[in-house]
C-alpha cells in the first residue's frame, strides 16, 4: 500500500483518487454513498437572534437565559449560537458606503457576533456555559460530556474568501447559514432558531398585517414557494437541499417563555420545516 508510484513524472500515493482529476464527475461520483457518518448525533443546535432577541436587552434576554439554564439542568445536549444583530447591519451599511469588497465585509461582521457570544456567556457562566473558539471545534465532546453549555461563533469562517455573491454586494454566507453548517457537519438532526416572531410567515409580519404564519411545511414545498422576505439566510435553504443530516429546522418566538423548552421537547411550536 505504501509504495510510491512515479511512472509519469509525478510522485503518487496509491489511493482510489490517485492521478485523478477531482473535477471529473466520473471520479467524484465514486466518493458518494447513501450513508454518512454522524459525528455528534442527538445534539440540538439552538440559534438565538441578534436583532430579534439580543438587541431588545434585559427584558428579552434574561427570561431566555433562565430558560437555557433550566434546559441545561435537564441535560439536553445542546450547542448555542447567537447572531450579531443591529451592529452587523450598521457595520455593513458603513462598509458598503465606503466601498469595501464583499470579502472585506465578511471579514468584519463576525466581530459583532463574537461580542454577543461573550454577552451571553457573561450571563450564563454560572450555569456552565463556555464560549468556544472556532478552532477549538474538537473540544465539543468534552463540554457535552460534562453537561456544559457551549456557545459557538455563528458566522462561518469565510472571511476575505467570501465568494462574490449572486445578485448583490452583501456576503451570502451569514450566521444562520453558519449555524446550519455547524449542525450539518456534526451530524445533528435538529436546529431551533429563537427569534421575535412566532415563526416563518408568508410575508414579513412587521411590515404586512395580512402576513400568515406557516406552522408546518416541508423544505420541498417551501422551496416551490419561497417567501420574498425570509426570516433565515437564503443560503441556509440552498445548503439544506444537499445536506445529509439536518432533518428539522424550527423557528420559535423567544419573547414567549416556554417556546424554546417546548421545541427542544420535540413539540411543534412556531414553524417547523422538515426535510423528507
Amino acid at each position, binding site marked *: 500500500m505504501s509504495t510510491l508510484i512515479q511512472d*509519469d513524472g*509525478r*510522485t503518487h*500515493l496509491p*489511493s*482510489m*483518487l490517485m492521478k485523478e*482529476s*477531482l*473535477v*471529473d*464527475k466520473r471520479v467524484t461520483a*465514486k*466518493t*458518494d*454513498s447513501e*450513508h*454518512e*457518518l454522524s459525528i455528534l448525533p442527538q445534539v440540538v443546535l439552538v440559534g438565538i437572534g441578534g*436583532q*430579534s432577541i439580543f*438587541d*431588545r*436587552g434585559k427584558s*428579552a434576554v434574561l427570561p431566555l437565559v433562565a430558560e437555557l439554564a433550566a434546559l441545561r439542568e435537564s441535560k439536553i445536549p445542546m450547542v448555542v449560537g447567537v447572531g450579531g444583530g*443591529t451592529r452587523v*447591519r*450598521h457595520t455593513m*451599511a458603513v462598509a*458598503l458606503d*465606503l*466601498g469595501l*469588497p*464583499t*470579502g*472585506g465585509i465578511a471579514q468584519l461582521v463576525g466581530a459583532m457576533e463574537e461580542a454577543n457570544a461573550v454577552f451571553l456567556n457573561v450571563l450564563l457562566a454560572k450555569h456552565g456555559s463556555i464560549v468556544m473558539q472556532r478552532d477549538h471545534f474538537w473540544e465539543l465532546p468534552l463540554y457535552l460530556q460534562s453537561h456544559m453549555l457551549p456557545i459557538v461563533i455563528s458566522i462561518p*469562517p469565510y472571511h*476575505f*474568501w467570501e*465568494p*462574490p*455573491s449572486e445578485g*448583490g*454586494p*452583501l456576503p451570502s*454566507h*451569514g450566521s444562520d447559514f*453558519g449555524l446550519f*453548517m*455547524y449542525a*450539518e457537519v456534526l451530524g445533528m438532526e435538529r436546529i431551533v432558531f429563537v427569534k421575535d416572531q412566532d415563526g416563518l410567515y408568508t410575508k414579513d409580519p412587521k411590515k404586512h398585517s395580512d402576513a400568515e404564519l406557516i406552522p408546518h411545511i416541508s423544505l420541498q414545498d417551501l422551496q416551490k414557494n419561497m417567501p420574498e422576505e*425570509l*426570516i*433565515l*439566510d437564503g443560503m441556509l435553504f440552498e*445548503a439544506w437541499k*444537499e*445536506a445529509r*443530516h439536518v432533518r428539522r429546522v424550527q423557528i420559535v418566538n423567544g*419573547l414567549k417563555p416556554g417556546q424554546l423548552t417546548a421545541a427542544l421537547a420535540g413539540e411543534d411550536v412556531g414553524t417547523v420545516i422538515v426535510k423528507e
Partner: protein
Amino acid sequence: MEERLNIASALTDATLTRPEVPGFSYDPIAMIPDAKVIKLGGQSLMDRGRDVLVPVLDEVVAAKERFKMLLCCGGGTRARHIYSIASDLEMPTGVLAALGGYVPRQNARMVQMLLAKHDGIFILGDDFEKLPLYFRLGCIPIMTGMPPFGYWEKPGPEGRIPANRTDAGVFLSAEALGAPRAIFVKDEDGLYTDNPKKNPKAEWIPRIGARELLSLDLPDMVVERAAIEYVSRAHFCKELQIINGLKPGSLTRALEGEDIGTIIYQDT
C-alpha cells in the same frame, strides 16, 4: 417588552437574508490591484519535485523586484489520499475540506523553505491584512491555496469531494485583493475539451467565457467548477489564466501580461 435597540443606518430595516440591497449602488474599491496572485499546482507541480518546481521558483525570484507576488499552493496526491480515506469512512464533506487543508499548507511550507533566502515567508489567512508590509519589504508571501471554509464547506449534490478547493481559494484570494487576473501554474497548456492525459483527442481552448464554459458542461476540466463560477460574477478578478509550468518562461510571460495558456474570462 422593550423594543429593539436599533442603530439607525441604511440597513436598519433591511431583511439581509439575501445579498441584494435594493436602491443602493455599490462601487467597491480594490485593495491591492497590482498584486499577482499565483497558484502553484499540487499534483501538477509540487508532486513532480525538484526538476519541475525549482525552475518555476527561479522565475519567481527573477521577477521579484518587478511584481508583488502572492504564491498559493495546491494539494496534490496526499490530498487525494486524504479524500479517498475520509470518503471511504463516509465522513461529511466539511471534514474532508478541513482535513484536505493540511496538505497545501505543507506544500506552502516546502516552498517557503526553498525561497527563504529570497525573502519567501509563510503566511496564514489571518496575515492577509499584513500583505502591504510584506510587499513593501520585498518579501514573497507564500500561503495555502485552500479557502478557510473547512467544516463550513457545503455538501454537494454528488460525492463528498469539497467543491471549493485550492483553485477556488486562490481565485478568491485574487478577488479579495482586487487583482484583475489570477495565474494558475499547472502542467498542461491550459484548458482542453476533456482531460488530455486520458483523452488524446481533447482539444486545447485558448480563450473562453466562464458562463459559456460552464454551459458546455465538460466531463473534466483543468480547473475547479467553483472557481469558474466565481469568475462569472467577480467584481475585480475577471480573468483566470492557466499556464504550463513545465515550459520554461511561461510564468515570466504571464506575469508580463502575455495571453499564453488559457484565459477564462467573465462573459455576460
